[in-house]
Protein backbone atom coordinates (compact mmCIF):
# COMPACT_ATOMS: atom_id res chain seq x y z
CA UNK A 1 0.00 0.00 0.00
CA UNK A 2 1.36 3.40 -0.91
CA UNK A 3 1.47 6.38 1.42
CA UNK A 4 -1.33 8.04 -0.54
CA UNK A 5 -3.62 5.02 -0.10
CA UNK A 6 -2.91 4.94 3.62
CA UNK A 7 -3.59 8.67 3.88
CA UNK A 8 -6.87 8.13 2.02
CA UNK A 9 -7.97 5.39 4.40
CA UNK A 10 -7.00 7.52 7.40
CA UNK A 11 -8.86 10.56 6.04
CA UNK A 12 -12.00 8.53 5.34
CA UNK A 13 -11.79 7.09 8.87
CA UNK A 14 -11.50 10.55 10.43
CA UNK A 15 -14.38 11.83 8.31
CA UNK A 16 -16.50 8.93 9.50
CA UNK A 17 -15.47 9.43 13.11
CA UNK A 18 -16.37 13.11 13.05
CA UNK A 19 -19.45 13.10 10.82
CA UNK A 20 -20.56 9.50 10.48
CA UNK A 21 -20.68 10.21 6.70
CA UNK A 22 -23.66 7.95 6.29
CA UNK A 23 -24.59 7.36 2.67
CA UNK A 24 -28.31 6.86 2.13
CA UNK A 25 -28.79 5.35 -1.31
CA UNK A 26 -32.44 6.23 -1.85
CA UNK A 27 -32.73 6.44 -5.62
CA UNK A 28 -29.97 4.15 -6.80
CA UNK A 29 -27.51 1.62 -5.39
CA UNK A 30 -23.78 2.36 -5.30
CA UNK A 31 -22.40 0.82 -8.49
CA UNK A 32 -19.22 0.71 -10.50
CA UNK A 33 -20.55 2.63 -13.49
CA UNK A 34 -19.57 6.02 -14.83
CA UNK A 35 -21.44 8.72 -12.94
CA UNK A 36 -21.56 12.43 -12.28
CA UNK A 37 -22.69 13.14 -8.72
CA UNK A 38 -24.02 16.67 -8.28
CA UNK A 39 -24.78 18.06 -4.83
CA UNK A 40 -25.50 21.14 -2.76
CA UNK A 41 -22.41 23.00 -1.56
CA UNK A 42 -22.24 24.43 1.95
CA UNK A 43 -18.80 23.69 3.25
CA UNK A 44 -15.24 22.82 2.32
CA UNK A 45 -15.88 19.38 3.75
CA UNK A 46 -18.57 18.51 1.20
CA UNK A 47 -16.24 16.65 -1.12
CA UNK A 48 -14.65 14.63 1.67
CA UNK A 49 -18.09 13.69 2.94
CA UNK A 50 -19.36 12.37 -0.41
CA UNK A 51 -16.07 10.60 -0.93
CA UNK A 52 -16.19 8.94 2.50
CA UNK A 53 -19.83 7.95 1.99
CA UNK A 54 -18.92 6.02 -1.16
CA UNK A 55 -17.94 2.36 -0.81
CA UNK A 56 -14.19 1.96 -0.63
CA UNK A 57 -13.68 0.48 -4.10
CA UNK A 58 -15.58 3.28 -5.83
CA UNK A 59 -13.50 6.03 -4.25
CA UNK A 60 -10.43 5.80 -6.49
CA UNK A 61 -12.48 6.19 -9.68
CA UNK A 62 -14.53 9.13 -8.40
CA UNK A 63 -12.77 12.48 -8.71
CA UNK A 64 -13.40 15.98 -7.35
CA UNK A 65 -12.83 19.27 -9.14
CA UNK A 66 -10.17 21.50 -7.59
CA UNK A 67 -9.18 25.10 -8.33
CA UNK A 68 -5.68 24.92 -9.78
CA UNK A 69 -4.31 28.14 -8.29
CA UNK A 70 -5.32 27.24 -4.70
CA UNK A 71 -4.76 23.50 -4.62
CA UNK A 72 -1.34 23.52 -6.28
CA UNK A 73 0.02 26.42 -4.23
CA UNK A 74 1.93 24.21 -1.80
CA UNK A 75 3.49 20.79 -2.16
CA UNK A 76 1.24 19.28 0.48
CA UNK A 77 -1.95 20.58 -1.14
CA UNK A 78 -0.79 19.34 -4.51
CA UNK A 79 0.09 15.93 -3.10
CA UNK A 80 -3.27 15.69 -1.33
CA UNK A 81 -5.35 16.60 -4.37
CA UNK A 82 -3.28 14.65 -6.90
CA UNK A 83 -2.23 11.51 -5.09
CA UNK A 84 -5.01 10.99 -2.55
CA UNK A 85 -8.09 12.45 -4.26
CA UNK A 86 -7.03 12.29 -7.96
CA UNK A 87 -8.56 15.74 -8.43
CA UNK A 88 -9.33 17.30 -11.79
CA UNK A 89 -7.80 20.79 -11.84
CA UNK A 90 -9.63 23.72 -13.35
CA UNK A 91 -8.48 27.32 -13.72
CA UNK A 92 -10.59 29.93 -12.06
CA UNK A 93 -9.35 32.67 -14.39
CA UNK A 94 -11.32 32.54 -17.60
CA UNK A 95 -9.08 32.71 -20.63
CA UNK A 96 -10.65 33.07 -24.06
CA UNK A 97 -8.75 30.31 -25.77
CA UNK A 98 -9.71 27.55 -23.32
CA UNK A 99 -13.04 26.01 -22.48
CA UNK A 100 -13.31 25.82 -18.66
CA UNK A 101 -15.03 22.45 -18.95
CA UNK A 102 -12.22 20.88 -20.93
CA UNK A 103 -10.45 19.13 -18.02
CA UNK A 104 -13.80 17.65 -16.95
CA UNK A 105 -14.52 16.44 -20.46
CA UNK A 106 -11.14 14.77 -20.59
CA UNK A 107 -11.68 13.01 -17.27
CA UNK A 108 -15.07 11.74 -18.41
CA UNK A 109 -13.59 10.54 -21.70
CA UNK A 110 -11.07 8.59 -19.68
CA UNK A 111 -13.97 6.82 -17.96
CA UNK A 112 -13.78 8.44 -14.53
CA UNK A 113 -16.71 9.51 -12.38
CA UNK A 114 -16.94 13.10 -11.13
CA UNK A 115 -18.40 14.95 -8.17
CA UNK A 116 -19.51 18.47 -9.00
CA UNK A 117 -21.18 21.27 -7.10
CA UNK A 118 -23.19 23.08 -9.78
CA UNK A 119 -23.91 26.11 -7.59
CA UNK A 120 -20.34 27.16 -8.30
CA UNK A 121 -19.83 28.53 -4.80
CA UNK A 122 -20.86 27.73 -1.25
CA UNK A 123 -24.36 28.71 -0.25
CA UNK A 124 -24.19 29.39 3.44
CA UNK A 125 -27.84 29.89 4.26
CA UNK A 126 -31.04 28.23 3.17
CA UNK A 127 -31.73 26.92 -0.30
CA UNK A 128 -29.06 26.17 -2.88
CA UNK A 129 -28.27 28.88 -5.44
CA UNK A 130 -29.32 28.48 -9.10
CA UNK A 131 -27.18 25.93 -10.92
CA UNK A 132 -24.45 26.94 -13.35
CA UNK A 133 -24.70 25.62 -16.88
CA UNK A 134 -21.71 23.23 -16.76
CA UNK A 135 -23.89 20.31 -15.72
CA UNK A 136 -26.11 20.84 -18.77
CA UNK A 137 -23.19 20.84 -21.17
CA UNK A 138 -21.72 17.70 -19.64
CA UNK A 139 -25.11 16.00 -19.85
CA UNK A 140 -25.27 16.92 -23.56
CA UNK A 141 -21.76 15.67 -24.30
CA UNK A 142 -22.02 12.43 -22.30
CA UNK A 143 -25.56 11.06 -22.54
CA UNK A 144 -24.42 7.64 -21.26
CA UNK A 145 -23.00 8.94 -17.98
CA UNK A 146 -25.53 8.68 -15.15
CA UNK A 147 -26.33 11.95 -13.38
CA UNK A 148 -26.94 11.32 -9.68
CA UNK A 149 -28.33 14.10 -7.46
CA UNK A 150 -27.14 14.17 -3.83
CA UNK A 151 -28.04 16.18 -0.75
CA UNK A 152 -25.44 16.71 1.96
CA UNK A 153 -27.08 17.42 5.29
CA UNK A 154 -25.78 19.07 8.44
CA UNK A 155 -22.21 19.63 7.29
CA UNK A 156 -22.34 23.40 7.86
CA UNK A 157 -22.68 22.66 11.58
CA UNK A 158 -19.48 20.61 11.66
CA UNK A 159 -17.23 23.47 10.65
CA UNK A 160 -18.86 26.90 10.36
CA UNK A 161 -17.10 29.57 8.32
CA UNK A 162 -13.98 30.87 10.02
CA UNK A 163 -13.46 27.90 12.35
CA UNK A 164 -10.61 25.45 11.96
CA UNK A 165 -11.48 22.63 14.37
CA UNK A 166 -14.42 20.46 13.29
CA UNK A 167 -17.04 19.48 15.86
CA UNK A 168 -18.34 15.89 15.76
CA UNK A 169 -21.85 16.07 14.38
CA UNK A 170 -23.53 13.41 12.28
CA UNK A 171 -24.01 14.16 8.60
CA UNK A 172 -25.77 12.24 5.87
CA UNK A 173 -25.38 12.12 2.12
CA UNK A 174 -28.61 11.13 0.40
CA UNK A 175 -28.27 9.91 -3.18
CA UNK A 176 -31.32 10.20 -5.43
CA UNK A 177 -32.55 8.57 -8.61
CA UNK A 178 -30.55 9.21 -11.81
CA UNK A 179 -31.60 12.18 -13.89
CA UNK A 180 -31.41 12.27 -17.70
CA UNK A 181 -31.49 15.13 -20.16
CA UNK A 182 -34.77 14.88 -22.11
CA UNK A 183 -34.58 15.20 -25.89
CA UNK A 184 -34.96 18.85 -26.83
CA UNK A 185 -35.01 20.02 -23.21
CA UNK A 186 -34.08 23.67 -22.70
CA UNK A 187 -30.99 24.48 -20.68
CA UNK A 188 -32.91 26.49 -18.09
CA UNK A 189 -35.56 23.81 -17.64
CA UNK A 190 -32.97 21.10 -17.17
CA UNK A 191 -30.95 23.05 -14.62
CA UNK A 192 -34.12 23.88 -12.72
CA UNK A 193 -35.11 20.21 -12.73
CA UNK A 194 -31.65 19.17 -11.56
CA UNK A 195 -31.80 21.65 -8.69
CA UNK A 196 -35.25 20.41 -7.71
CA UNK A 197 -33.95 16.83 -7.73
CA UNK A 198 -31.26 17.81 -5.24
CA UNK A 199 -33.68 19.79 -3.08
CA UNK A 200 -36.14 16.90 -2.99
CA UNK A 201 -33.59 14.80 -1.11
CA UNK A 202 -33.39 17.26 1.77
CA UNK A 203 -34.65 15.58 4.97
CA UNK A 204 -37.77 17.23 6.38
CA UNK A 205 -37.05 19.87 8.98
CA UNK A 206 -37.96 18.63 12.47
Amino acid at each position, binding site marked *: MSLADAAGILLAFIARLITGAQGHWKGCPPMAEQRIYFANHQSHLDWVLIWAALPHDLRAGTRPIAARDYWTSSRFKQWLTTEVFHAVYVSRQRSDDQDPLEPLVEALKAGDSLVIFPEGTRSLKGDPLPFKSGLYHLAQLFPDVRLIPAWID*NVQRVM*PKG*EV*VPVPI*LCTVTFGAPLALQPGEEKRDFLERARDAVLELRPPAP
Partner: protein
Amino acid sequence: MMTVIDPRHLSVDQQVGLLFVILFGALLLTTAGTTLLALRRGTDSADPRHLRLLRDLRALWVGALVFWVAWVSGPVGATLAFGIFSFLALREFITLAHTRRSDHRSLILAFFIVLPLQYVLVGNRNFDLFTVFIPVYVFLAIPVLSALAGDPERFLERNAKIQWGIMVCVFGLSHAPALLLLEFPRYEGRGAFLVFFLVVVAAVAQIAQELMSRWLRRRPVARHIDRSFSYRAWLAGALAAAVVGLLLFWITPFKAPQALAIAFIAGGAGTLGEFVMKALKKDAGVRFWGNRASITGAVGLLDRVAPLCFAAPVFFHSVRWFFQLRA
Protein backbone atom coordinates in the same frame (compact mmCIF):
# COMPACT_ATOMS: atom_id res chain seq x y z
CA MET B 1 -25.43 -23.26 42.31
CA MET B 2 -22.71 -25.33 40.69
CA THR B 3 -22.50 -28.92 41.78
CA VAL B 4 -19.70 -30.14 39.53
CA ILE B 5 -17.28 -27.27 40.07
CA ASP B 6 -17.47 -25.17 43.16
CA PRO B 7 -16.96 -21.60 41.86
CA ARG B 8 -15.41 -20.53 45.13
CA HIS B 9 -12.38 -22.71 44.41
CA LEU B 10 -11.69 -20.97 41.11
CA SER B 11 -9.40 -17.99 40.73
CA VAL B 12 -10.99 -14.58 40.14
CA ASP B 13 -10.15 -14.72 36.43
CA GLN B 14 -11.69 -18.15 36.08
CA GLN B 15 -14.82 -17.01 37.85
CA VAL B 16 -15.19 -14.06 35.51
CA GLY B 17 -14.49 -16.33 32.53
CA LEU B 18 -17.24 -18.67 33.67
CA LEU B 19 -19.57 -15.72 33.95
CA PHE B 20 -18.95 -14.84 30.31
CA VAL B 21 -19.49 -18.40 29.13
CA ILE B 22 -22.86 -18.45 30.90
CA LEU B 23 -23.78 -14.97 29.65
CA PHE B 24 -23.00 -15.57 25.98
CA GLY B 25 -24.52 -19.05 26.13
CA ALA B 26 -27.79 -17.63 27.45
CA LEU B 27 -27.80 -14.88 24.85
CA LEU B 28 -27.13 -17.37 22.06
CA LEU B 29 -30.00 -19.58 23.24
CA THR B 30 -32.39 -16.63 23.46
CA THR B 31 -31.48 -15.36 20.02
CA ALA B 32 -31.83 -18.83 18.49
CA GLY B 33 -35.17 -19.28 20.26
CA THR B 34 -36.52 -15.97 19.00
CA THR B 35 -35.43 -16.67 15.46
CA LEU B 36 -37.01 -20.16 15.49
CA LEU B 37 -40.23 -18.81 16.96
CA ALA B 38 -40.42 -16.10 14.32
CA LEU B 39 -39.81 -18.67 11.59
CA ARG B 40 -42.43 -21.09 12.87
CA ARG B 41 -45.10 -18.48 13.35
CA GLY B 42 -44.11 -16.87 10.06
CA THR B 43 -44.23 -13.53 11.79
CA ASP B 44 -44.31 -10.61 9.42
CA SER B 45 -40.90 -9.03 9.75
CA ALA B 46 -42.53 -5.59 9.80
CA ASP B 47 -44.47 -6.41 12.96
CA PRO B 48 -43.50 -3.60 15.35
CA ARG B 49 -43.54 -5.84 18.43
CA HIS B 50 -41.23 -8.34 16.84
CA LEU B 51 -38.94 -5.55 15.69
CA ARG B 52 -38.88 -4.10 19.18
CA LEU B 53 -38.02 -7.46 20.65
CA LEU B 54 -35.18 -7.84 18.17
CA ARG B 55 -33.96 -4.37 19.08
CA ASP B 56 -33.96 -5.18 22.78
CA LEU B 57 -32.08 -8.37 22.08
CA ARG B 58 -29.53 -6.52 19.99
CA ALA B 59 -29.08 -4.02 22.82
CA LEU B 60 -28.34 -6.94 25.12
CA TRP B 61 -25.73 -8.28 22.72
CA VAL B 62 -24.10 -4.87 22.45
CA GLY B 63 -24.07 -4.56 26.22
CA ALA B 64 -22.57 -8.01 26.68
CA LEU B 65 -19.87 -7.38 24.07
CA VAL B 66 -18.89 -4.03 25.57
CA PHE B 67 -18.69 -5.64 28.95
CA TRP B 68 -16.50 -8.42 27.61
CA VAL B 69 -14.17 -5.98 25.82
CA ALA B 70 -13.98 -3.89 28.99
CA TRP B 71 -12.97 -6.88 31.05
CA VAL B 72 -10.50 -8.39 28.58
CA SER B 73 -8.67 -5.12 28.06
CA GLY B 74 -8.24 -4.20 31.72
CA PRO B 75 -8.70 -0.76 33.34
CA VAL B 76 -7.09 1.22 30.52
CA GLY B 77 -9.04 -0.64 27.86
CA ALA B 78 -12.30 -0.35 29.78
CA THR B 79 -11.84 3.38 30.20
CA LEU B 80 -11.01 3.73 26.52
CA ALA B 81 -13.93 1.56 25.37
CA PHE B 82 -16.46 3.53 27.39
CA GLY B 83 -14.76 6.77 26.31
CA ILE B 84 -15.44 5.89 22.68
CA PHE B 85 -19.04 5.03 23.51
CA SER B 86 -19.36 8.38 25.26
CA PHE B 87 -17.99 10.15 22.22
CA LEU B 88 -20.43 8.43 19.85
CA ALA B 89 -23.39 9.03 22.19
CA LEU B 90 -22.52 12.71 22.64
CA ARG B 91 -22.09 13.07 18.88
CA GLU B 92 -25.59 11.74 18.39
CA PHE B 93 -27.02 13.88 21.17
CA ILE B 94 -25.49 17.11 19.86
CA THR B 95 -26.65 16.32 16.33
CA LEU B 96 -30.24 16.09 17.57
CA ALA B 97 -29.93 19.15 19.81
CA HIS B 98 -29.63 21.61 16.90
CA THR B 99 -26.96 23.87 18.28
CA ARG B 100 -26.12 27.21 16.74
CA ARG B 101 -22.98 28.47 15.09
CA SER B 102 -21.89 30.39 18.16
CA ASP B 103 -21.84 27.15 20.18
CA HIS B 104 -18.87 25.92 18.22
CA ARG B 105 -16.23 26.69 20.85
CA SER B 106 -18.31 25.22 23.66
CA LEU B 107 -18.72 22.05 21.65
CA ILE B 108 -15.01 21.79 21.01
CA LEU B 109 -14.50 22.09 24.76
CA ALA B 110 -17.08 19.38 25.41
CA PHE B 111 -15.77 16.87 22.87
CA PHE B 112 -12.04 17.36 22.96
CA ILE B 113 -11.29 18.53 26.49
CA VAL B 114 -14.08 17.62 28.92
CA LEU B 115 -14.68 14.11 27.58
CA PRO B 116 -11.05 12.93 27.56
CA LEU B 117 -10.33 14.57 30.93
CA GLN B 118 -13.29 12.88 32.57
CA TYR B 119 -12.08 9.48 31.40
CA VAL B 120 -8.49 10.22 32.46
CA LEU B 121 -9.88 10.97 35.93
CA VAL B 122 -11.70 7.63 35.91
CA GLY B 123 -8.63 5.77 34.73
CA ASN B 124 -6.56 7.33 37.52
CA ARG B 125 -9.23 6.55 40.10
CA ASN B 126 -9.46 10.24 41.12
CA PHE B 127 -13.01 9.57 42.22
CA ASP B 128 -13.41 12.74 44.27
CA LEU B 129 -12.51 15.05 41.42
CA PHE B 130 -14.28 12.76 38.95
CA THR B 131 -17.64 13.25 40.65
CA VAL B 132 -17.42 17.06 40.75
CA PHE B 133 -15.44 17.86 37.62
CA ILE B 134 -18.47 18.12 35.30
CA PRO B 135 -21.22 19.27 37.71
CA VAL B 136 -19.01 22.00 39.21
CA TYR B 137 -16.19 23.13 36.92
CA VAL B 138 -17.59 22.36 33.48
CA PHE B 139 -20.95 23.72 34.60
CA LEU B 140 -19.29 27.14 34.81
CA ALA B 141 -16.84 26.80 31.92
CA ILE B 142 -19.44 26.07 29.23
CA PRO B 143 -21.62 29.18 29.71
CA VAL B 144 -18.54 31.38 30.10
CA LEU B 145 -17.21 30.22 26.76
CA SER B 146 -20.66 30.57 25.29
CA ALA B 147 -21.04 34.14 26.54
CA LEU B 148 -17.62 35.00 25.14
CA ALA B 149 -18.91 33.95 21.73
CA GLY B 150 -21.18 37.00 21.98
CA ASP B 151 -24.49 35.54 20.85
CA PRO B 152 -27.31 36.24 23.34
CA GLU B 153 -29.99 34.51 21.30
CA ARG B 154 -31.58 31.59 23.20
CA PHE B 155 -28.56 31.58 25.48
CA LEU B 156 -30.08 29.54 28.29
CA GLU B 157 -31.59 26.98 25.97
CA ARG B 158 -28.39 26.43 24.02
CA ASN B 159 -26.29 26.05 27.14
CA ALA B 160 -28.81 23.77 28.76
CA LYS B 161 -28.64 21.46 25.77
CA ILE B 162 -24.88 21.21 25.88
CA GLN B 163 -24.77 20.80 29.65
CA TRP B 164 -27.38 18.11 29.48
CA GLY B 165 -25.58 16.26 26.72
CA ILE B 166 -22.36 16.27 28.74
CA MET B 167 -24.13 15.18 31.92
CA VAL B 168 -25.86 12.22 30.28
CA CYS B 169 -23.37 11.05 27.69
CA VAL B 170 -20.08 11.79 29.47
CA PHE B 171 -20.73 12.07 33.19
CA GLY B 172 -23.38 9.35 33.32
CA LEU B 173 -21.65 6.84 31.12
CA SER B 174 -18.23 7.35 32.71
CA HIS B 175 -19.62 5.81 35.89
CA ALA B 176 -19.68 2.40 34.24
CA PRO B 177 -15.87 2.09 33.99
CA ALA B 178 -15.66 3.76 37.40
CA LEU B 179 -17.51 0.75 38.80
CA LEU B 180 -14.86 -1.51 37.32
CA LEU B 181 -12.22 0.41 39.22
CA LEU B 182 -14.04 0.89 42.49
CA GLU B 183 -12.18 -0.88 45.27
CA PHE B 184 -14.17 -2.87 47.78
CA PRO B 185 -12.40 -4.45 50.72
CA ARG B 186 -11.92 -8.19 50.00
CA TYR B 187 -13.37 -7.72 46.51
CA GLU B 188 -10.26 -6.70 44.53
CA GLY B 189 -10.27 -7.31 40.79
CA ARG B 190 -13.93 -8.14 40.62
CA GLY B 191 -15.27 -4.81 39.38
CA ALA B 192 -16.40 -6.64 36.25
CA PHE B 193 -19.03 -8.45 38.33
CA LEU B 194 -20.37 -5.12 39.52
CA VAL B 195 -20.70 -3.77 35.97
CA PHE B 196 -22.29 -7.05 34.94
CA PHE B 197 -24.71 -6.78 37.84
CA LEU B 198 -25.65 -3.25 36.79
CA VAL B 199 -26.08 -4.09 33.12
CA VAL B 200 -28.15 -7.19 33.80
CA VAL B 201 -30.35 -5.44 36.31
CA ALA B 202 -30.94 -2.46 33.99
CA ALA B 203 -31.73 -4.76 31.05
CA VAL B 204 -34.09 -6.92 33.11
CA ALA B 205 -35.96 -3.85 34.33
CA GLN B 206 -36.34 -2.62 30.76
CA ILE B 207 -37.57 -5.92 29.38
CA ALA B 208 -39.88 -6.64 32.32
CA GLN B 209 -41.42 -3.19 32.02
CA GLU B 210 -41.99 -3.73 28.31
CA LEU B 211 -43.64 -7.12 28.86
CA MET B 212 -45.75 -5.91 31.78
CA SER B 213 -47.03 -2.88 29.91
CA ARG B 214 -48.21 -5.20 27.15
CA TRP B 215 -49.83 -7.57 29.60
CA LEU B 216 -51.36 -5.00 31.95
CA ARG B 217 -52.56 -2.64 29.21
CA ARG B 218 -52.78 0.25 31.65
CA ARG B 219 -53.56 3.72 30.47
CA PRO B 220 -50.24 5.39 29.68
CA VAL B 221 -49.24 8.14 32.11
CA ALA B 222 -47.89 10.37 29.36
CA ARG B 223 -49.26 9.21 26.05
CA HIS B 224 -47.54 11.90 24.04
CA ILE B 225 -44.17 10.72 25.22
CA ASP B 226 -44.44 6.99 25.57
CA ARG B 227 -47.49 4.88 24.89
CA SER B 228 -46.31 2.00 27.03
CA PHE B 229 -45.12 3.73 30.20
CA SER B 230 -47.32 3.32 33.27
CA TYR B 231 -46.56 3.40 37.00
CA ARG B 232 -47.40 -0.25 37.50
CA ALA B 233 -45.31 -1.38 34.58
CA TRP B 234 -42.43 0.71 35.88
CA LEU B 235 -42.80 -0.78 39.34
CA ALA B 236 -42.94 -4.27 37.87
CA GLY B 237 -39.74 -3.57 35.98
CA ALA B 238 -37.93 -2.31 39.04
CA LEU B 239 -39.20 -5.26 41.11
CA ALA B 240 -38.07 -7.74 38.49
CA ALA B 241 -34.66 -6.05 38.60
CA ALA B 242 -34.68 -6.39 42.40
CA VAL B 243 -35.46 -10.12 42.21
CA VAL B 244 -32.71 -10.73 39.66
CA GLY B 245 -30.37 -8.62 41.79
CA LEU B 246 -31.19 -10.80 44.77
CA LEU B 247 -30.47 -13.95 42.76
CA LEU B 248 -27.12 -12.49 41.73
CA PHE B 249 -26.08 -11.24 45.13
CA TRP B 250 -23.32 -13.87 45.37
CA ILE B 251 -21.30 -12.23 42.59
CA THR B 252 -21.38 -8.83 44.30
CA PRO B 253 -19.82 -7.54 47.51
CA PHE B 254 -23.35 -6.95 48.83
CA LYS B 255 -25.42 -8.99 51.25
CA ALA B 256 -28.71 -10.32 49.89
CA PRO B 257 -31.01 -7.49 51.14
CA GLN B 258 -28.49 -4.87 50.02
CA ALA B 259 -28.33 -6.43 46.56
CA LEU B 260 -32.14 -6.38 46.40
CA ALA B 261 -32.35 -2.69 47.31
CA ILE B 262 -29.53 -1.58 45.03
CA ALA B 263 -30.89 -3.58 42.10
CA PHE B 264 -34.31 -1.97 42.62
CA ILE B 265 -32.76 1.50 42.57
CA ALA B 266 -30.57 0.84 39.53
CA GLY B 267 -33.32 -0.90 37.54
CA GLY B 268 -35.86 1.81 38.31
CA ALA B 269 -33.39 4.58 37.45
CA GLY B 270 -32.57 2.91 34.14
CA THR B 271 -36.16 2.64 32.95
CA LEU B 272 -36.90 6.20 34.07
CA GLY B 273 -33.83 7.29 32.14
CA GLU B 274 -35.13 5.59 29.04
CA PHE B 275 -38.47 7.30 29.53
CA VAL B 276 -36.74 10.68 29.70
CA MET B 277 -34.77 9.84 26.56
CA LYS B 278 -38.04 9.16 24.74
CA ALA B 279 -39.28 12.62 25.67
CA LEU B 280 -36.05 14.05 24.34
CA LYS B 281 -36.41 12.24 21.04
CA LYS B 282 -39.97 13.45 20.63
CA ASP B 283 -38.71 16.95 21.28
CA ALA B 284 -36.04 16.56 18.61
CA GLY B 285 -38.66 15.30 16.17
CA VAL B 286 -37.29 11.80 15.78
CA ARG B 287 -39.80 9.05 15.20
CA PHE B 288 -37.79 6.36 13.54
CA TRP B 289 -34.50 4.90 14.60
CA GLY B 290 -31.77 2.94 12.94
CA ASN B 291 -30.56 3.57 9.45
CA ARG B 292 -34.12 3.99 8.20
CA ALA B 293 -34.11 7.36 9.87
CA SER B 294 -35.25 10.22 7.72
CA ILE B 295 -33.67 12.70 10.07
CA THR B 296 -29.94 13.18 10.18
CA GLY B 297 -28.42 12.09 13.43
CA ALA B 298 -30.70 9.31 14.57
CA VAL B 299 -28.45 6.30 14.72
CA GLY B 300 -29.91 4.57 17.74
CA LEU B 301 -26.84 4.31 19.95
CA LEU B 302 -28.24 6.84 22.40
CA ASP B 303 -31.30 4.65 22.73
CA ARG B 304 -29.25 1.68 23.77
CA VAL B 305 -26.99 3.40 26.26
CA ALA B 306 -29.64 5.68 27.80
CA PRO B 307 -30.67 3.30 30.62
CA LEU B 308 -27.00 2.81 31.51
CA CYS B 309 -26.29 6.57 31.40
CA PHE B 310 -28.92 7.18 34.05
CA ALA B 311 -28.57 4.03 36.11
CA ALA B 312 -24.77 4.01 36.38
CA PRO B 313 -24.30 7.24 38.37
CA VAL B 314 -27.19 6.44 40.71
CA PHE B 315 -25.83 2.95 41.25
CA PHE B 316 -22.26 4.12 41.71
CA HIS B 317 -23.10 6.82 44.22
CA SER B 318 -25.53 4.73 46.22
CA VAL B 319 -22.92 2.02 46.53
CA ARG B 320 -20.17 4.45 47.41
CA TRP B 321 -22.27 6.28 49.94
CA PHE B 322 -23.69 3.15 51.50
CA PHE B 323 -20.36 1.43 51.93
CA GLN B 324 -18.50 4.63 52.82
CA LEU B 325 -15.87 3.82 50.25
CA ARG B 326 -12.99 6.21 49.98
CA ALA B 327 -11.09 5.21 46.89
